[in-house]
């Protein structure tokens, strides 16, 4: 049997396969399959913890390499070296051999040592440099203090020695001791000089003052240029201080306090000649250090920029390699035969491709033992694999956001491609706004390649949905033409079907009515007649029209969706779903809402006034149909025999309820009983997947297993267990019944509430139109009324405002709101009619997907 071609209509046929791979080429096979990205491997070692698995050592090693590469990256960022990004569309990376990976690991190791030793020496040197600079500042500033302080040694002495020295004494002493040339040491006054952060000065001073009880003389000066803190690399403002104090103990205390406050104390000589020598020495040393520092930095930068050329490629190689080993960890290893055994899901149609890939790898490795791929039978539910292309991808994503379709059921994204944008357009209908949106969508598609690189998140989201935007814009152009709205103004594309009846002696301000130009002939051919625009009863007409349109479109959408449930039931060969769900549901829906739609159309198509009849209200008609079957509202008939027809339809609808309720559960019970009577039993173990998982799957084997023997494939399966690992297997009538009761109640109530829900189409299109009318009247209309040069300037300003607000409020905000409402109509009103959403997504082992999804690797890829 040749498998059918996979189409987007259903998820692809999947097969469970078993691979026997020779141990030596396990890595290569995995690599090739990762490039192919078509197999989802099952974990065959789920009983083992992460540490017990075979390839954990390799993963650890690669983790280390990855860490080293990240270290290089941070070093490069610190040094401001740009990373050469890898553009996977342009560059291709050949799958690495094991030796290449080993070399890479070794190289990363040695580079890391080199870079870190360079870094270390750089940091030491930097620290030395800062210290020397600080010292130089201390020498310079302290020198100034000394020169000044030598002038008033007496004062210092007096203020430290003598508590009750007169306050004004210094003034006198200043005069008397003008030529004092005495050293501090002679006076037994010592000093401490150093540097402290400017923000700590106040605290430092206070602490010193308190602990020494004021027995000190402190001098300080600000260092004008900020110094760089070597540990954090941030500039810090600092002060130089010199503290004079009396006595060794006090000086030692000051030193200790300075150190504890984070100040650096430097050695300064009090003799000015010695100090000069010191300054010279410091300058010389500083020069040396700076030279060495420059050299070190250059070497480091050269090293890093060399690394930057290939860092991205390495990073990607390593992460791929890691993924390969992680996958290999899922395989089971047969020690006796030295083979790896893997199991996984893959699309049936791609089996030949996978087979040939395996063959290729085998041939390249020159191995005599072939890799074997076997399809195995299973009753586990396969994953749902919906192939997408550039166009359908975004549509599929908005469907998958709701849920994953059941395996092989109709892909809900198929109708969504049209219905979602169309219902959006019904709400968004404005030609002008639609054209702007169309231009934006076309621009995004025209510059598809360059725009793909934009990483700005909000734009990336819009860009991802560019094809949705395109379809939405095209439909909006159409609905804009139908509504005859362009920025809330009308277009006179055709002759109107109306003409004004002008009374004689017409004066401005008189009310005029229109009449049909040809009562039985010409009608406005496309969209709404522009004569309605700006009339007093415009809303009266358009509300009635849009409301009815919403009901009709909703009815069409729901009927269409309901039909898919028929297709699903046929595909899964469940006729009971057709007779027990689809048919009664359809009759129920059509006999109420189908009838309503028919009445709406019939009422439109009859010339009521021409035949001299009164048109009945449809809303009341529907209400009376339920409340007082057999009577008509006010006795006005839409058509002869209406009362009878309505009673019949109502009965038809009511009869469907018990059918919906009971047919399916009782049929299932009957079927089950019949099968039991013939001697079939439930199969104790439902999932026989592989010899390998026998243990965990068959934990609850019943006695039935024994008499089945190996011929289990021949045994009839009573349970259609679609969920693979569900618990139940027995037929439970009560469960089926409850499920069906819920379904029935839900369906019948939803028919009403969902139809009402489509009225949002009317509400939002009304809101959109009115909002754009208000915007026009508040900006452009005012400007167009103003005359003269002021009017011209005003017009420019008003137009700018009009345009910007149109885009922001009417296109972006209203567009988003219409989109959300349309999304809801798709998710709730449409999907609830047919889709089960009981599947699980196919997540193949694929490098491409892995690279796309990884946040971490994004910065390495251009």
């Amino acid at each position: 049997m040749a498998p059918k071609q996979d189409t987007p209509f259903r998820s692809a046929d999947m097969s469970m396969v078993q691979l026997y791979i020779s141990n030596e080429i396990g890595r290569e096979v995995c690599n090739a399959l990762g490039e192919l990205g078509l197999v989802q491997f099952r974990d065959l070692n789920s009983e083992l913890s992460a540490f017990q698995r075979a390839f954990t050592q390799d993963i650890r090693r690669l983790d280390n390499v990855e860490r080293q590469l990240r270290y290089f990256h941070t070093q490069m960022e610190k040094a401001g070296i740009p990373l050469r990004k890898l553009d996977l569309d342009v560059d291709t990376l050949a799958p690495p051999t094991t030796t290449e990976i080993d070399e890479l690991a070794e190289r990363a190791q040695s580079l890391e040592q080199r870079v870190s030793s360079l870094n270390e020496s750089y940091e030491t040197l930097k620290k030395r440099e800062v210290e020397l600079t600080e010292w130089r500042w201390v020498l310079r500033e302290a020198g100034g203090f000394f020169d000044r302080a030598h002038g008033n040694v007496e004062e210092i002495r007096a203020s430290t020695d003598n508590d009750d020295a007169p306050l004004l004494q210094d003034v006198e002493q200043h005069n008397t001791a003008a030529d004092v040339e005495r050293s501090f040491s002679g006076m037994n006054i010592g000093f401490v000089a150093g540097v402290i952060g400017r923000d700590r000065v106040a605290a430092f001073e206070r602490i010193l003052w308190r602990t020494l009880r004021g027995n000190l003389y402190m001098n300080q000066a600000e260092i004008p240029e900020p110094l760089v803190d070597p540990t954090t690399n941030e500039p810090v403002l600092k002060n130089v201080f010199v503290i004079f104090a009396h006595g060794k103990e006090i000086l030692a205390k000051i030193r200790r306090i300075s150190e504890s406050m984070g100040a650096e104390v430097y050695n300064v000589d009090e003799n000015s000649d010695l100090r000069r020598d010191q300054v010279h020495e410091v300058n010389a040393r500083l020069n040396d250090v700076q030279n060495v520092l420059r050299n070190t930095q250059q070497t480091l930068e050269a090293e890093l920029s060399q690394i930057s050329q290939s860092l991205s490629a390495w990073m990607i190689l390593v992460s791929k390699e890691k993924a390969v080993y992680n996958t290999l960890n899922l395989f089971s290893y047969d020690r006796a035969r030295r083979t790896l055994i893997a199991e996984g899901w893959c699309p049936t149609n791609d089996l030949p491709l996978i087979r040939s890939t395996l063959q290729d790898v085998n041939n390249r490795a020159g191995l005599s033992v072939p890799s074997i791929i076997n399809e195995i039978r299973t009753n586990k539910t396969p994953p749902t694999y919906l192939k997408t292309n550039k166009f359908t991808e975004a549509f599929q994503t908005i469907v998958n956001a709701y849920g994953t379709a059941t395996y092989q059921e109709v892909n809900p994204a198929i109708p969504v491609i049209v219905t979602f944008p169309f219902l959006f357009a019904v709400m968004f209908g404005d030609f002008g706004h639609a054209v702007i949106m169309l231009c934006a969508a076309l621009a995004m598609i025209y510059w598809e390649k360059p725009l793909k690189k934009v990483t700005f998140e909000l734009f990336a989201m819009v860009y991802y949905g560019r094809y949705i935007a395109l379809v939405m814009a095209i439909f909006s152009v159409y609905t804009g033409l139908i509504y005859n709205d362009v920025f809330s103004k009308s277009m006179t594309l055709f002759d109107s079907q109306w003409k004004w009846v002008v009374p004689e002696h017409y004066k401005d301000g008189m009310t005029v009515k229109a009449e049909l130009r040809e009562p039985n002939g010409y009608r406005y051919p496309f969209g709404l007649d522009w004569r309605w625009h700006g009339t007093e009863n415009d809303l009266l007409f358009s509300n009635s029209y849009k409301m009815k349109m919403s009901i009709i479109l909703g009815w069409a959408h729901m009927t269409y969706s309901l039909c898919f449930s028929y297709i699903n039931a046929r595909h899964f060969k469940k006729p009971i779903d057709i007779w027990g769900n689809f048919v009664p549901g359809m009759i129920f829906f059509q006999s109420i809402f189908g009838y309503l739609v028919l009445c709406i159309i019939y009422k439109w198509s009859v010339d009521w006034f021409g035949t001299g009849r009164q048109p009945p209200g449809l809303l009341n008609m529907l209400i009376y149909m339920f409340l007082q079957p057999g009577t008509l509202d006010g006795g006005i008939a839409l058509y002869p025999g209406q009362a009878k027809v309505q009673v019949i339809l109502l009965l038809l609808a009511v009869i469907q309820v018990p059918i919906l309720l009971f047919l399916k559960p009782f049929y299932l019970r009957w079927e089950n009983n019949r099968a039991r009577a013939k001697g079939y039993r439930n199969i104790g173990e439902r999932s026989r997947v592989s010899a390998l998982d026998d243990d965990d799957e068959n934990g609850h084997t019943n006695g039935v297993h024994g008499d089945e023997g190996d011929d289990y494939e021949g045994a009839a399966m009573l349970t259609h267990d679609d969920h693979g690992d569900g618990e139940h297997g027995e037929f439970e009538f009560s469960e089926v019944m409850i499920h069906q009761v819920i379904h029935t109640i839900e369906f019948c109530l939803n028919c009403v509430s969902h139809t009402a829900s489509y009225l949002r189409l009317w509400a939002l299109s009304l809101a959109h139109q009115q909002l754009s009318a208000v915007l026009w009247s508040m900006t452009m209309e005012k400007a167009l009324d103003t005359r003269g040069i002021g009017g011209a300037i005003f017009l420019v300003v008003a137009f700018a405002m009009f345009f910007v607000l149109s885009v922001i409020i009417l296109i972006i905000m209203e567009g988003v709101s219409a989109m959300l409402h349309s999304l809801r109509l798709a998710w709730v009103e449409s999907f609830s009619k047919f889709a089960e959403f009981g599947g699980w997504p196919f997540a193949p082992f694929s490098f491409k997907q892995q690279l796309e999804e990884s946040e971490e690797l994004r910065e390495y890829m251009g």
Partner: protein
Amino acid sequence: MANGWSIIIGLVVVAGMCVAAWIFSPKGENQVLWRSSLILAFISCYLMWAITFLAQLHPLIEPRRSDLRKEYIHH
């Protein structure tokens, strides 16, 4: 030019377009996509046009306004 028969004519035209879409959809795995999308789009658009046309076929109310200027009233 356009009267009640337009609905039927439009239906025929759209039916023709649907048939053409069915026949001329490019072959391949996406054929079903082309067919369903094109036909659904045609029918949706027809439905909307037909509803709008029908709503104005036998109007129950007529436009009324009182802000017309004398010079433009005959347009």
